């Protein structure tokens, strides 16, 4: 059961990504062209409810299933890495229509060609590791 719950959560995630059409290259193009509210509605709803949920968790000092207090890690205070890394990510997101989750979900959706995108993403991650020290952060 320890591991099965993560597989189950992943299954729900894969279903949600597919049924919301957030895995669709076409939908991502529509979003970047500002031609539909669809993707903004999904992300906007998630963010507003997410902010409220995190506030409630902090306010009520809720605990996770192991009984440990739920803690939220702050992101490093930096600027360059978020904007430069973000732009590089965005270029790839628009080109492939896939962020890391949907790459894998689309494999299940019957698009074996996503393997090439995944191989690229692994290579890109590896290259970041190699050049990390030389990049401005």
């Amino acid at each position, binding site marked *: 059961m320890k591991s099965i719950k*993560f597989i*189950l*959560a992943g*299954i729900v*995630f*894969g*279903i949600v*990504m*597919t*049924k*919301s059409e957030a895995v*669709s*290259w*076409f939908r991502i193009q*529509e979003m*970047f*062209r500002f*031609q*539909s509210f669809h*993707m903004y*509605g999904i992300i906007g709803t*998630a*963010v507003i409810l997410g902010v409220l*949920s995190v506030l409630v968790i902090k306010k009520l000092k809720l605990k996770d299933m192991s009984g440990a207090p739920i803690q939220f890690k702050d992101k*490093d205070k930096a600027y360059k*890495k*978020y*904007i430069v*890394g*973000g732009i590089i*990510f965005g*270029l*790839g*997101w*628009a*080109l*492939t*229509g896939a*962020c*890391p*989750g949907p790459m*894998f*979900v*689309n*494999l299940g*959706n*019957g*698009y074996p*060609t996503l393997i*090439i*995108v995944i191989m*690229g993403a*692994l*290579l*890109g*991650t590896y*290259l*970041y*590791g*190699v050049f990390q020290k030389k990049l401005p952060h």
Partner: protein
Amino acid sequence: MVEFIKQPWPWYFSGIMIVIIMLVLIFFGKSFGFSSNLRTICSMAGAGKRVKFFDFDWKAQIWNLLFLLGSIIGGYLATHYLSDPKPVALSVQTQNDLHKLGIQFNGKLNPDELFSLTALENPKTILLLLLGGILVGFGSRYAGGCTSGHAISGLSNLQLPSLIAVIGFFIGGLIMTFLLFPLIF
């Protein structure tokens, strides 16, 4: 019930479900961030021997790889058992804009010009998919997260760095869509 699930889900329902997934992972004592898996897979493949960035206890991340495995199964289930054959309700404007670039809307999730097996006969397609993947992988690690880690988890926790990253995602996406697509396609 099944008929209801088979329809495309409205945006608000999808948004709610994404938050529920984030909250379930938090309840499990974890956090929602998908791109970490790419780093974990590099470590599993032995990259930690050469590059310090990958020298960490990847076994602590197995839960996220299980989540990844589930997401592939979920995609399969959604497509094969929970979908109706109606085309994606893509905006007509988007269809027209893409048509001008030589990409036809096929009613499915992804265009044949980039993602069908026959499209791979053109080496340019392979190059584009590989390059796009490299940008996503490199960029998400450089920015310390992707759509799930920054746009959902980070913004939910009111993290300014995540907002900067999401603005970056959009700058990159707009450059690709409006400046580079006309040159590429």
